[in-house]
């Protein structure tokens, strides 16, 4: 309920609505989400229902995992966990409750997508009859088991990796990559998303009807200009006992994860581990009888007005650099070296977006960290907080993105490729401003992290639409478009922060 009542959930739902609309593209759209060789299904109930359920199984799992992976952390942060620890609730029941609450969040998103897909189907064209079961059953058998497993996995990841959000995100990313690999590998029988059985049935039906063809399944947002696509009619699949057992297996695996996690759950007794990690100052510094001495402020050196923002930028930059584990800087350094020595196109298209994505955690709370750290009482009462402090935060974020991209920028500048260098510069501005704006809009960092993840996934798959840093688009018109988008983000961000401060 806590998450469902939040503003961030509303934004997530808005995105879910758009996703439902985009999962089944209209006939004239410039992209496809499922293609079997040159064949695509006609938009009847079965195609729409199955396709939406399969896409939901993949994308809600991917997005949802990052959306729900801080459910226990919230209990630690708010101190509620300490109260829960003293109650009679067992570890298993507590973790099961957490997994179920995660599941409810994902189910609500799925429900919206399902309803939206039905509405889109009925509104788009009335050629094919509406068959309710072709929508309900795929969601029930394909999507729901995936979402249950993801909900349980998020809880297990929190139990075992609660000390490091980076490791937790890495584990989530690892699971998704593994699931994707298994999904695309024709020799693998493991089908976590429940998609393979459907696409293989489509493939077999097509081969049976058109002997001699060998169509390959392509799934995801496939942008192509192919006009020679052939329509075929898909009527759904027979839900075999084996398929249903496979889906049940993943739900049981989720339950097993919770049972195993409950054996190792810290039950909020985490202070000994924290103490092992770092020596507290009270260990270093033995308190004396009188902590506060007699201070004569009049005897202290005098200070002068100083309205420059360089000290603010310096500290904001320091905060960004120190955030996250230190080893990540080794990875960053490796990425920067790779930007120097890799082929220019590869460095621009693949290394740079991944290198920037590794900083998602640093940028995602750029505009919200004052509230999450309870610093806003100081910052909002500071001198010109909008033009000085907020500007300093954005500049520090942009400096970090430019620092990481600097090897590539230098290569372009030396090679007199000013347009490409300019696009990287705009990209650096864009991603930081997007982080700030989405943070202000939702009051949290999840939405930016999810969108950034989807964006970098699209970037490495060469989707032109998400190319915010000019790896694929090299026209001056595109530069201007991105520049306008960046300026708009800046204006919206400043205006939103101004309103936020007025609303206090």
């Amino acid at each position, binding site marked *: 309920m806590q998450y469902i009542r939040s503003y961030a959930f509303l934004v997530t739902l808005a995105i879910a609505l758009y996703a439902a609309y985009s999962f089944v593209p209209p006939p004239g759209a410039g992209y496809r989400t499922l293609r079997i060789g040159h064949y695509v299904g006609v938009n009847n109930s079965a195609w729409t229902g199955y396709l939406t359920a399969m896409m939901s199984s993949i994308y809600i799992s991917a997005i949802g995992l990052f959306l729900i992976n801080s459910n226990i952390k919230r209990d630690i942060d708010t101190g509620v966990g300490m109260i829960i620890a003293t109650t009679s609730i067992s570890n298993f029941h507590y973790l099961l409750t957490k997994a179920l609450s995660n599941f409810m969040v994902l189910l609500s998103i799925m429900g919206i997508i399902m309803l939206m897909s039905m509405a889109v189907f009925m509104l788009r064209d009335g050629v094919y009859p509406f068959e309710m079961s072709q929508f309900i059953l795929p969601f029930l058998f394909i999507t729901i088991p995936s979402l249950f497993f993801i909900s349980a996995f998020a809880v297990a990841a929190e139990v075992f990796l609660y000390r490091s959000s980076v490791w937790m995100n890495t584990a989530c990313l690892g699971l998704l990559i593994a699931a994707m690999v298994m999904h695309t590998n024709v020799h693998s029988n493991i089908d976590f998303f429940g998609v393979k059985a459907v696409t293989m049935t489509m493939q077999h039906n097509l081969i049976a009807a058109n002997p001699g063809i060998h169509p390959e399944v392509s799934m995801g947002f496939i942008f192509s200009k192919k006009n020679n696509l052939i329509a075929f009619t898909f009527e759904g699949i027979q839900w075999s006992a084996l398929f249903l057992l496979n889906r049940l297996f993943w739900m049981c695996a989720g339950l097993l994860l919770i049972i195993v996690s409950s054996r190792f759950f810290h039950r909020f007794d985490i202070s000994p581990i924290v103490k092992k990690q*770092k*020596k*507290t*100052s*009270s260990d*270093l*510094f033995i308190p*004396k*009888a*009188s*902590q*506060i*001495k*007699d*201070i*004569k*402020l009049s*005897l*202290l*050196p*005098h*200070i*002068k*007005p*100083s*309205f*420059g*923002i360089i*000290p*603010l930028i310096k*500290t904001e930059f*320091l*905060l960004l650099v*120190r*955030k996250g584990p230190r080893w990540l800087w080794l990875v960053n350094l490796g990425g920067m070296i790779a930007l120097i020595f890799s082929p220019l196109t590869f460095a621009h298209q693949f290394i740079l977006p991944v290198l920037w994505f590794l900083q998602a955690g640093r940028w995602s709370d750029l505009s919200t*960290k004052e509230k999450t*750290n*309870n*610093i*806003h*009482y*100081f*910052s*909002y*009462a*500071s*001198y*010109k*907080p909008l033009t*000085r*402090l907020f500007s300093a935060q954005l500049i520090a974020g942009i400096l970090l993105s430019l620092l990481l991209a600097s090897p590539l920028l230098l290569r372009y500048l030396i090679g007199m490729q000013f347009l490409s260098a300019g696009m990287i510069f705009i990209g650096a501005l864009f991603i930081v401003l997007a982080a700030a704006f989405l943070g202000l809009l939702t009051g949290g960092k999840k939405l930016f992290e999810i969108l950034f993840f989807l964006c970098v996934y699209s970037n490495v798959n060469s989707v032109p639409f998400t190319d915010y840093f000019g790896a694929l688009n090299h026209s001056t018109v595109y530069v201007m478009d991105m520049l306008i988008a960046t300026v708009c983000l800046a204006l919206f961000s400043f205006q939103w922060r101004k309103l936020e401060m*007025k609303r*206090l």
Partner: protein
Amino acid sequence: MKLQIQQVSKKYNKEKYGLKDFSLSIENGILGLLGPNGAGKSTLMKIISTISRPSSGTVDLDGHDILQNPDYIRSMLGYLPQDFGVYANLNAYEFLEYIAAMKGVGGPGLKGRIEGLLEGLNLIASAKAPIGTYSGGMKQRVGIAQALLNDPKVLIFDEPTVGLDPEERMRFRNLIADLAQNCIIILSSHIVSDIETIADQVAIMKSGQLITTGTQADLIQQAEGKVFEVLMNNEDLAAFKTKYQVVNTMRYKDQLKIRYMSNDPIHGSIPIIASLEDAYLYLTHQ
């Protein structure tokens, strides 16, 4: 300096007010704010600190409307919120430098001033350690240091003694008593004794409204002749509490010594000289 708060209200919804028609004039010296939880003390302090905007009313500092021009007070403000956080990755020195930059102060004296404050607040030995490793009391002292950083002329302390031990509290009271010569200090606390010893003026709030204001003597005067002590058995206490406002209960030999307030004392009661705490309880329970 003169801070004038006139008819200030903070409305959350149709029926709920954080502050209602609050008016008060404050000059150099210490104003102690007393009131139960939810009385509106923190809301008032946030409004004066320009963190929160009132729904109506005006707040002027030396004739400058600080609601229209918040930067006027911000340049001379020291504010210690009740529940503040820190950036755990910064050390005390870096954090204070950052706060100084936020406040728009600097110059060659800044380093020495930060060191002086850290020394005075006994944080110099741990100044290079990340604040995330500090104890609650140490963080509170960092909060006090940041409030004093810019040579403030208006100092607002919301529950400043939370986390300080009794001796630290006494030192802190001495410190702000020294500062009060040249600036306005507004201090809220649940601990009446914190205010009793240093406040020049006391304001008592309840349900977002100002009940009364005046010197401590003025307030105590209102409870004079209404505080009594009586001895009774333990089993009579519950019935007594339903009729009288009990301030304090102490075990005395085999009986209980009850300090209570009433306009009509029971037989055997001894009149007691009222304290600020008695006055506070009397006024907030009327």
